[in-house]
């Protein structure tokens, strides 16, 4: 179907228990948080989450939705240690596959290309191989080098937040760094995209920006307009992260420390409720871009 418009609820309805779900973005940046919040409002469980993790991973772990996390870090930048992820880890409630940041994208690329693995030196000489059960391969050429076989990180679904899309899934992705969103899209059987701005036909609206089509529409299954949908993470050039909101979220991990008592604050009964609680889309749009 060429018209890929869906609601956030439609998207979450296409997911099922036990799925492996990739989440685009990086730490507190470009996270499809509105879709994550919709997922948090559902009954989904036993998920494997594959992410350059931020509050997406923390919230899903805190809510007990996660069986396993594939990660290289989980962090909110200025709050280096993601407090809810930390709690879940220290409670021993998660299975994990911990890999290096570069191995992670390598695993997404292996999945994108339908390969069982891609070879890398990364991981040799560390605890990663032993802890993650990673195997080695030997180069069949004269060098005979031993390499780690980074397994494909095949995703049942990927969730990505982009700047623009049309209803056919022609996306445009801006911002100074797009991280590995392209590879999440290609590693996934189905990719669901939320966007700041949904247009009718991209060629009628923003043809001059076609080079920002980070991944082609054949990789897009569903599209929904959710402006402000990365909040509290950053979505340049539209808005920066909301460090005050992250701080409140982090503080809540200490006091009261119980997700069920605070979920309503950080998820809301509906996305509209959530946005209202933080001052609306205007407040999100006013958040300054972060300075590094």
């Amino acid at each position, binding site marked *: 179907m060429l018209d890929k418009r869906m609601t956030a609820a439609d998207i979450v309805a296409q997911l099922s228990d036990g799925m492996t779900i990739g989440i685009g973005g*990086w730490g507190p940046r470009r996270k499809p948080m509105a879709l994550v919040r919709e997922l948090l409002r559902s009954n989904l469980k036993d998920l494997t989450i594959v992410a350059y*993790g931020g509050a997406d991973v923390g919230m899903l772990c805190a809510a007990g939705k996660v069986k396993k996390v594939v*990660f*290289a*870090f*989980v*962090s909110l930048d200025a709050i*280096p*240690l993601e407090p809810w*992820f*930390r709690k879940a*880890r*220290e*409670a*021993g409630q998660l*299975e*994990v596959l*911990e*890999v*290096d*940041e*570069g*191995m992670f*994208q*390598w695993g997404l690329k292996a999945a994108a290309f339908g390969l069982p693995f891609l070879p890398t*030196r*990364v*991981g*040799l*000489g*560390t*605890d*990663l*191989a032993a*802890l993650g059960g990673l195997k*080695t391969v*030997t180069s069949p050429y004269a060098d*005979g*080098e*031993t*390499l780690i076989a980074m397994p494909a990180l095949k995703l049942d679904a990927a969730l990505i937040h982009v700047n623009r899309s049309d209803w056919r899934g022609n996306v445009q992705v801006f911002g*100074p*760094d*797009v*991280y*590995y969103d*392209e590879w999440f899209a290609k590693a996934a059987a189905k990719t669901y995209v939320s966007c700041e701005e949904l247009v009718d036909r991209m060629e009628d609206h923003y043809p001059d920006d076609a080079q920002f089509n980070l991944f082609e529409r054949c990789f897009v299954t569903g599209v929904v307009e959710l402006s402000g949908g990365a909040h509290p993470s950053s979505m340049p050039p539209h808005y920066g992260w909301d460090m005050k909101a992250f701080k409140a979220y982090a503080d809540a991990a200490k006091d009261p420390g119980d997700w069920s008592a605070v979920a309503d604050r950080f998820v809301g009964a509906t996305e509209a409720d959530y946005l209202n609680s933080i001052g609306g889309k205007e407040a999100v749009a006013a958040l*300054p*871009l972060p*300075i*590094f």
Partner: protein
Amino acid sequence: MTDVTLAELCIFAASEAFRGNGEIVATGVGPVPRLGAGLAKLTHTPELMMTDGECYLVEQPVPLGPRNYDDRKKAGYLPFSRFFDSAVWTGRRHAMVTPTQIDRFGQINLSQLGGTHKQPKTQMLGVRGFPGNTIYHPNSFFFPSHTTRVFVEGEVDMVSGVGYNPAKRIAGGNYSGVALKKIITNLCVMDFGGTDNAVRVVSLHPGVTFQEVQAATGFPLEKGDLVETSLPDADALAIIAQLDPHNIRASVIKDNPPAQRVS
């Protein structure tokens, strides 16, 4: 020079770690390493490349702390989306970072403390890019507090970065990219120039003794020349001040002591 701080001395020492590195990306994570890299670029090693901390390559190191978003002057582009293929996996980088633990092999840990991998006592960041950084390009380290909790006895709790531990090296792997350079702490400068890459003290900060460094370290250290660590000159101090207009460096080492100990 009595008003030089220990943090400024460490920044100066950090800049020396990047001396003559050539056209590679100098990454300093944290105020002292970042100021050290910037100082190196603005003084003895202008060919160094560096980012604004986000994704643009800059030829003018970006000052620390609050400034206007567009103050950086973009000269090139190095986003995370091509960081591994451009910088890390080609070996064109030297990073100076602050892990949570380091051991006598130079193995580092940023992932977890205590407990098991399934249930760590303390979950930290995760290995981040340390495994790739350490097998592909040079790395140095800065520690604002030199203690046996950082310089651990035995091995680190989770080996997140490759060191010179033969027992940890899977046979047949290519470890030719492993290059651990300098360790700068609030007490001294060390390198891996000892027997079989053992950690060696090369200079002591003014007023610090080798015995004091050894007592703060969980494994035996070798002795290098044990000269006194150089103080930054007035030019270097001026550049440091310009790169750190909000004096964030004053918050790095406890009580922001002077470089020259008051006896």
